[in-house]
C-alpha cells in the first residue's frame, strides 16, 4: 500500500465526516423551511434574516457570542455525562437553581468583599448547588440502578418550581413590583472585553469545553469514566469503583451546568425574575450529539445554534415566526442526525 492510497482514504474519510455533520443540518433546515411555507411564510427570507441578525450585524454577532457562554458551560457538563454513559437531562434545574442562588448572594456579597472575590465565590457556589441538585439522581442510579433520565427530568421540574419559590419569598427584592432578586449593578458584573458587550464568561465557557475535552480524552481519569459509560460490567471487572465514578460524573456534569447559570447571571442579567427558565439544557443535547461529544465540534455547533437563537429572536419580532420554530428545528436536527448516522453505519458495513 502506497502513501497515495492512504491519503485518498483520509480525504474520503474527512469528506464523509463533513457530510455526516452537514447533511443533518441541511435536511433540518429544508424540512423546517417546508413547514414555514405551509404556514405561509417565506423560508428564504426567514433564514436570511436569521443569518443577517445573528451573524452578519456587529451587535447581533456580539449578542450571539454572549449567548454562547451559558450554552458552552452546559455543553461541557453534557460532554462529561454522556461520555460517562449518564443521561443527565436535568441540566436545566441545576442551571436555574445555581443562577437563582448566585443572583441572591452576588449583590450583598459585593458590598463586603472585593468584586473579584465575589465572582469567584459565586462560581464555586453555583458549581456546588448544581452538584447538590444531581445528588438524588446520582444516588438512585449508583445504588439502585434507577434510570437517570426520569429522575433528572423530575428534579428539573422540582427545581423550576423551587427557583420560583426562592425568588418570590426569601430572595425577593422588595424594591421591585415584579418578583425578582436584587439586581447586581452592571459595573460589578463579569468584566467585558474591550468596547464590546462580550464578557469574559464567553472565554471561560470556551475553556471549560476544552478542559472537559482534555479531561475525558487525554487523562486516565477520563478514560475510567468512559469505560464506565461504555460497559459498566467490564468496568467492575477492571477494578474500577463504578459507584464512586457515577457520583463523580454526575457531580462534575451538574457543577458545570450550575456554572453556566452563574455565567448567565454575572455576565448578562444580574438578576433572576420569577418564571425565568431559558431551558438551554435540552436544546444543547442535540448539539453535543451532533459533535459526537467532541469538544471542538461542540464549540462550532454551539456557535451555530447561538446564531439561530439570536437571529430567531429578532425574526420572531420582525417576521412573526415565533421562537418555537427553533424548537422544531432542533427536533428535526436530532432526527436527521440519527438517520444520517444510521445510513453511514449501513454504508460502512457494506464496504468493509
Amino acid at each position: 500500500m502506497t502513501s497515495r492510497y492512504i491519503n485518498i482514504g483520509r480525504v474520503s474519510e474527512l469528506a464523509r465526516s463533513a457530510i455526516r455533520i452537514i447533511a443533518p443540518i441541511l435536511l433540518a433546515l429544508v424540512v423546517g423551511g417546508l413547514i414555514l411555507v405551509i404556514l405561509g411564510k417565506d423560508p428564504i427570507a426567514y433564514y436570511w434574516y436569521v443569518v443577517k441578525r445573528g451573524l452578519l450585524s456587529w451587535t447581533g454577532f456580539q449578542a450571539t457570542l454572549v449567548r454562547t457562554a451559558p450554552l458552552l458551560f452546559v455543553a461541557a457538563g453534557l460532554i462529561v455525562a454522556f461520555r460517562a454513559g449518564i443521561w443527565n437531562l436535568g441540566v436545566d434545574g441545576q442551571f436555574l437553581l445555581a443562577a437563582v442562588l448566585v443572583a441572591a448572594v452576588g449583590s450583598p456579597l459585593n458590598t463586603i468583599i472585593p468584586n473579584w472575590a465575589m465572582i469567584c465565590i459565586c462560581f464555586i457556589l453555583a458549581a456546588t448547588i448544581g452538584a447538590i441538585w444531581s445528588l438524588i439522581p446520582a444516588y438512585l442510579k449508583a445504588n439502585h440502578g434507577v434510570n437517570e433520565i426520569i429522575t433528572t427530568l423530575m428534579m428539573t421540574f422540582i427545581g423550576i418550581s423551587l427557583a420560583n419559590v426562592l425568588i418570590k419569598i426569601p430572595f425577593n427584592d422588595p424594591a421591585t413590583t415584579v418578583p425578582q432578586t436584587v439586581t447586581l449593578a452592571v459595573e460589578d458584573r463579569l468584566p467585558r472585553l474591550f468596547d464590546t458587550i462580550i464578557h469574559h464568561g464567553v472565554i471561560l465557557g470556551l475553556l471549560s469545553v476544552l478542559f472537559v475535552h482534555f479531561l475525558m480524552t487525554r487523562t486516565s481519569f477520563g478514560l475510567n469514566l468512559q469505560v464506565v459509560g461504555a460497559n459498566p460490567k467490564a468496568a467492575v471487572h477492571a477494578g474500577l469503583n463504578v459507584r464512586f465514578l457515577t457520583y463523580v460524573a454526575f457531580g462534575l456534569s451538574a457543577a458545570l451546568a450550575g456554572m453556566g447559570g452563574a455565567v448567565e447571571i454575572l455576565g448578562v442579567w444580574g438578576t433572576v425574575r420569577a418564571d425565568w427558565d431559558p431551558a438551554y439544557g435540552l436544546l444543547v443535547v442535540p448539539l453535543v450529539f451532533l459533535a459526537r461529544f467532541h469538544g471542538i465540534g461542540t464549540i462550532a455547533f454551539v456557535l451555530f445554534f447561538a446564531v439561530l437563537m439570536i437571529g430567531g429572536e429578532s425574526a420572531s419580532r420582525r417576521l412573526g415566526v415565533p421562537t418555537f420554530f427553533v424548537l422544531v428545528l432542533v427536533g428535526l436536527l436530532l432526527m436527521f442526525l440519527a438517520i444520517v448516522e444510521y445510513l453511514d453505519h449501513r454504508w460502512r458495513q457494506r464496504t468493509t
Partner: protein
Amino acid sequence: MSELLTETFVTALLFGSVTAGVPLLLAGIGEQISEKSGVLNIGLEGMMLVGAYTGFCAAYYFDSFWLGFLFGGLGGVSVAMLMVLFCVILGLNQIVIGIALTLGADGLTALLHHFQFSRTYPRLSAVEPLVIPVVGDIPYLGEVFFHRHPVVYLAVGLVFFLVWLFKRTYVGLNLQAAGDVPAALDVTGVSVRSTRTWAVLATGFLAGVGGAFLANIGAGIFVPHMIHGAGFIGIVLAMLARGHPTWVLYGAALFGVSLSLTTALQVAGFNIPTDVVQMLPFTMVIVMLILLGRNSYLPAALALPYIRGER
C-alpha cells in the same frame, strides 16, 4: 384544619383527582405496553402534546368530544409512527429519538397554535357526563366517580382488559418476549418488529387520548407546553408498576390526588404559593423512587434494538 375537611373541599379534591389521574393512567398503561415489548418511549410527552393539540382542534371544530378523543389518539399515533420508523425499523437510539420527538412536538404544536389562534385561547363547552344509574346516586362519591365522560370508564376498563391480555393471551406473551428475549420470539416465528410496531402504535394512541383528555376535559382549552411533565410521570408509573396494569391505576390515582391538590387548595382559599404545590407530584415521584426504586423492573432488552443474528 377543620375547613380543610369540608364537603366541598373533599369533593373538589376527589373530582379533580380523577380528572387529573385519567391522562396519567392512559399514558402510563400506554408506556407499559411499549416498555413490555422492549421500546423505551421517551417521546411519550410529545405524543401527549400532539394528542392534546389534534384532540382539541377536532373537538373545537367538530364540536364533539368523541371526535376529539379519536383525533387525539390519531395525533399520538402519528408521532408513534415516527418512533416506529426510527426505533423499531431502523433501530436508532430510542432515547435520542424520544427527546427529538418531544422537543419537536413541543415546538410544532406551539407554532401551529400560534398561527391558528394567535394569542386567543378558545374554550370548549363543559362536557356532558354519562351518569351511571344506581351507583351514580351515592352521595358525593357518585358524583366523583360515576358522573363522567364515558372515556373515564373505558380507561379504567382498559386496565382490566390489559391484565387479561398480558396474562392469558398469546398477544401478551409475545409482547413480554419481545421485551425480554426478542431472539426467542423470533425463533418461534413471530416477528419482533411487528410486535414492537403494534405496541408502540398502541402507546401512541393511548397517550394521544390521554393528551386530548387533559386538554378537552381537564382544561377545556389548549395551551402550548400544557402537558408539563405528565408524560414523564407516565413513564415513571410504567417503571414502578413492574408490568402490572393495576399498579399503574393505583399510581395514577395517587399522582392524580397530588396534582389535584393544587387546585383544591386554591378553591379552599389556602394561601400556599402555587409553585410549592406544583412541586408536589414531582417530589412524590422522587420519594416513590427512593422508597421503591430498587424494585423498579424493566424488561431485559429495553431500549435495545433487535437485529436478527446479532448478539
